[in-house]
């Protein structure tokens, strides 16, 4: 088990290193510098700034410094907000994004599992049909279309919720719903398929033959076995939350990392773009790693094969 974890962590570091290297050299290819044209600095001042950020060093030296900075959490200096470190910008804005992502992931997964469970129990019944339709719509319709629909109907027309911006909990409701549709639909589809299969397996018959009650069959014997494979789709879910946060924060004008990213794209603020990308990458890779390890913990079959035996 320890060897397995070490191997996985090593892979993770290699991947991050590749991404970091890639983004460093890409940044060198792209035009732009922290010197803001509007600042109208004199040549000497410019030289001081360049010197201060080490931009006069040869590229390899800059590369080493950059990697060194990364290790300490330094993502460089933004072009658009002069002299502001990218890390600070991201830290300022991580709150809303994290809240939104967490709300969407938790609520979406719980609702999705419930939906899938209901569908599996009423196999081929009306509820099954309904939840399948929800699942197909949820995985097919792009989240920004959902966001627009919600915003127009519930905020602009019915005026139940604020149209945009961030502040109270009410502000977070519509974006959370828009963001959680995909995880919910994915979980629902997945749980339904798994649950139908598990409920048809031999050990369920054994449990029935023991006299276990129906709720016991579904929750104690069925659900656990159906939920374990669910962790394998958390990867796609995480990606959908990241792409979702970009468009949905933009649509609802939420001051989060996603909105910052889209704005940085508009003004070609490469260090911020690269920084955000790197952060997304680290986040994603971290999530996948945790999930893999978690998988080993909750599935006894894997726990053993990775360890003693």
């Amino acid at each position: 088990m320890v060897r397995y974890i070490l191997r996985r962590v090593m892979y993770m570091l290699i991947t991050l290193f590749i991404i970091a290297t890639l983004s460093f050299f890409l940044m060198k290819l792209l035009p732009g510098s922290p010197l803001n044209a509007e600042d109208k600095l004199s040549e000497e001042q410019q030289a001081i700034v360049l010197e201060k950020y080490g931009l006069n060093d040869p590229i390899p030296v800059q590369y080493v410094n950059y990697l060194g900075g990364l290790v300490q959490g330094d993502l460089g200096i933004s072009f658009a907000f002069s002299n502001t470190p990218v890390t600070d910008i991201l830290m300022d804005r991580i709150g809303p994004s994290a809240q939104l992502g967490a709300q969407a992931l938790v609520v979406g997964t719980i609702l999705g599992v419930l939906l899938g469970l209901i569908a599996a129990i009423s196999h081929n019944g009306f509820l099954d049909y309904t939840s399948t339709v929800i699942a197909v719509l949820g995985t097919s319709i792009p989240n920004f279309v959902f966001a627009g629909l919600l915003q127009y109907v519930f905020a602009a027309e019915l005026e139940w919720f604020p149209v945009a911006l961030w502040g109270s909990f009410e502000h977070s409701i519509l974006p959370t719903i828009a963001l959680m549709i995909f995880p919910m639909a994915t979980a629902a589809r997945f749980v339904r398929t798994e649950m139908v299969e598990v409920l048809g397996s031999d050990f369920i018959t054994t449990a029935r033959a023991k006299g276990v009650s129906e709720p016991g069959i579904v929750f104690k014997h069925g659900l656990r076995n159906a939920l374990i494979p669910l962790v394998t789709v958390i990867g796609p879910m995480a990606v959908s939350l990241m792409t979702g946060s970009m468009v949905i924060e933009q649509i609802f004008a939420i001051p989060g990392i996603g909105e910052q990213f889209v704005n940085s794209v508009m003004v070609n603020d490469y260090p911020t773009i690269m920084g955000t990308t790197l952060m997304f990458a680290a986040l994603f890779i971290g999530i996948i790693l945790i999930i893999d390890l978690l998988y080993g913990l909750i599935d006894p079959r894997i726990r053993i094969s990775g360890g003693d035996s």
Partner: protein
Amino acid sequence: MSKLLEVKDLAVSFNTYNGEVQAVRGVSFDLDKGETLAIVGESGSGKSVTTSALMGLVPKPQGVIKSGEILLEGEDLVKKSNKEMQKIRGKDISMVFQNPLSSLNPTMKIGNQIIEGLVKHQNMNRTDAKKRAIELLDQVGIPNPEIRMKQYPHQFSGGMRQRVVIAIALACNPKILIADEPTTALDVTIQAQILELMKDIQKETESAIVFITHDLGVVANVADRVAVMYAGKIVEYGTVDDIFYNPKHPYTWGLLGSMPTLDSDDEELYAIPGSPPDMLNPPKGDAFAPRNKFALEIDGVMEPPMFKVSDSHYAATWLLHEDAPKMEPPESVKKRMQGFANTGGEE
């Protein structure tokens, strides 16, 4: 004294996409305390469906019990609700399944799987239930039961898993233990161990056993009485001696004739041609007639009734009619019957 279990005219059908499949078509048998009844037949003959009806586990909504009674100590199980059956399953009747590799929950510790039934049916607290589970594992011959309790199914071999399944089935001292081909999926040496184990357990607990199998060798080894099933019906019914020394139904002849034995190397096996009928449209008359070289014209018209051979022995074939032409079993089958008689049924 009334019987422990009486099944009267049981019929089970499945409504499928293509129509009604008549899996069981009027089956009757009974079972005494401590007795072992073997139900023998090919795949699809309805033997497994019969036992799932006993357990109240006919898959719904496709499966329907069309008629009949299942009397457990005089109480009709067919009329019981699912809730009431939950109290009977695992307590009065329990079951051992065919495939030990898939019949245990892969994500639950062995101990908990045994304890589950005990807590449910005997209102035991967990400490007592744990003690009992360890006893049970010991009883079914699993070494180091305390450690094994905390392990998961994939850490056990196939034979060991089947022992665990047996332990689960035995947990509440059931009156009837149904064993649905419990040895089919196992290696031959392990098969013998499991059979021995079941015989020992029966001596200790006095449970009655319904043993489903297609292996006549196993039948001769464990059973007191035998019911031969074909196409959803019992075609011959008798004690082990009746069935092995004096079989009357051509299908039973076929089953006996197709079983290889050690001294049969010089002769051909007597194989039953063709395959079982489509139960979507069971043939008119005797379902076995198309594969039966001893068939009479009447088999194509009318189903044979159960003819009585002796007090313990019945068979459903027109050959037993007083006016029917006398037919002898094929030579190879006769030799085999002779062989059984000589060895006294001991394999």
